[in-house]
């Protein structure tokens, strides 16, 4: 069981011209077992929402709250949030030269669980997760994200999702830059995660394409730092047909 509650979240970022408000009061509840899609045009603040919840130092929370199962997420450090059960699959995963995927995954798993994983089952788990994402076993000897193709980076993110097994996964444009085969592999990974009891997913995307493979319970249209409209999966269909024009016009 897990519930991510975002209430009236306001976030600003420092710019050369002083602080700029990006999120202007976001309220969302991702109840246990639900998948929510956040869709919106570029610059609407979708990624800011993801990174603010994960605790990126670039963003300043100016108001509102975020709780996970009642715990105050915003008072936690970045790593505490991850250990509390939040996972952010990043749009641009970062290279860590000289650190192998195997070392990285083991270190992360140890940190999340508070103890080192059992060696025998762990190697099997890692190889299994990589295999399900069409990454061969030599992949674990490569340096984290270094020289990875765009597709490999995203599949590596989803392999981490499987292995670290959080309560709530935030996927920031995991579909961007993927060809259709990679998109299917990634979607299957997300669906395996969702198939477990009580997992929450916040799926941030610019396109409706991924929603053909991952059916959301709720769809929210994000415009200018707030939720402009919420609905069921049919809202995604409408966006597919008409784009964001209706919402952008309403804004003017």
């Amino acid at each position: 069981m897990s519930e991510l509650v975002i209430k009236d979240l306001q976030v600003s970022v420092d710019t050369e011209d002083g602080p700029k408000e990006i999120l202007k009061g976001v309220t969302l509840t991702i109840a246990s077992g639900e998948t929510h899609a956040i869709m919106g045009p570029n610059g609407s603040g979708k990624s800011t929402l993801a990174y603010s919840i994960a605790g990126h130092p670039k963003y300043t929370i100016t108001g509102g709250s975020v709780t996970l199962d009642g715990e105050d997420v915003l008072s936690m450090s970045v790593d505490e949030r991850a250990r509390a059960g939040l996972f952010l699959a990043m749009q641009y995963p970062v290279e860590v030269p000289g650190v192998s995927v195997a070392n990285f995954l083991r270190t992360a798993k140890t940190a999340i669980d508070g103890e080192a994983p059992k060696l025998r089952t762990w190697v099997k788990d890692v190889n299994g997760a990589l295999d399900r994402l069409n990454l061969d076993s030599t992949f674990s000897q490569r340096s984290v994200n270094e020289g990875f193709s765009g597709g490999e980076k995203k599949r590596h993110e989803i392999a981490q999702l499987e292995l670290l097994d959080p309560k709530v996964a935030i996927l920031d444009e995991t579909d961007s830059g993927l060809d259709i085969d990679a998109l299917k592999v990634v979607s299957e990974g997300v669906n395996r995660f969702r198939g477990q009891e009580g997992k929450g997913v916040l799926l941030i995307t610019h396109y409706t394409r991924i929603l053909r493979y991952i059916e959301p319970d709720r769809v929210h249209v994000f415009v200018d730092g707030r939720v402009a409209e919420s609905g069921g999966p049919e809202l995604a269909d409408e966006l597919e047909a008409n784009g964001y024009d209706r919402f952008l016009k309403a804004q003017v």
Partner: protein
Amino acid sequence: MTVTDTDPGTGLDTARDSVASALEQGRVESHLNPPPSYDLADHPVPTGREEVWRFTPLKRLRGILDGEASDKQLRREATLPEGVTLTEITAEQAREIGELAPNDRPSALAVANAGGAVLLDVPADLELDSTEPVVVTLTGEDAEDLVWGHVVVRLGRFSKATIVLRHTGSARYAATTTVVVGDGAELNMVSLQDWADDAVHLGRDAIRVGRDASVKHTSVSFGGDVVRMHANVQYDGPGGEAELLGLYFADAGQHLEHRLFADHNQPRTKSNVVYKGALQGQGARTVWIGNVLIRKVAEGIETYEENRNLVLTDGCQADSVPNLEIETGEIEGAGHASATARFDDEQLFYLRARGISDAEARRLVLHGFFQDLIRKVGIPSLEEQLTATVEAELAKNVLDELAPAGAS
């Protein structure tokens, strides 16, 4: 490796030609590198304003540059595979073998005062595996001891050897080492500066790369109060390759200086330099000078130099100066890169977003930073030791002293 001239009859002639052409070339015309000379008058006591001395804390050299006579020695222990010899020779014999004349005052003083040299000799055609390295450990007994060192390493034609020169204990030590690598030979050499905190070491490894020979030289500096090491390479014929690697970790108050000089004096030669360092603690100081000279004759050469420094705490200073002097444009490639930075916030965020603590994330990034280089050293037993030493350095300071930035 390029095509090798396998006609055994030409060997001696080639060697003689090389010496002759080296003599004809005469002085190094590089303004960044003083001409080599045995004459102490050519190496006056520096004031600290000279280009080659301006980064070095002269006072902390504790009088080495005064050049007092001393018969103190470092204790020498050696593991020698069969066929390899370690003997004492005269300074004249060292010259006859073809050592490179001193290029600064400490190396000139070392030759003048050491009263003879030590010769590490790997005979022609002897091929030693990297799992059986020649290990020479030099240990200083007392930080006040003034020790002059004069060493010649010779690899015969087509020989292959791995040599580890390890410095421990403490002393005031000035040494010059010439490495003469015969045609087609292959050398992997590591100089490990694992001194106690109060040692001063002014060292110079000068390498002659034979025709089609290949040399990997790695300088590793962890210990010592002041360590200033030269690694110089020049070529006795076309087709020689040199890879100069370095790894250093300066703690509070330490001065670690590495000066490279690749003198491309022959065509179709290669040099590749990668030095990586970390600094932590108040007054930690590193200096990296990478000089490359591409002479007019050096057509078709290829050179690249890279220096990266990771500054772990406030109060550190890293100087990094790549210099390239080019006298011909008819080359395959020449380039350099230098970067000195703190931890990358995005890297740390990525790791921490996976539950890894701030301190552990920093440890992991630093481990990775050096691991790329350590893997290139090519001596398995030493690679493990280097990894362990890096980890120990970190455990000693970084994890305790680092303010947990971004913990809020």
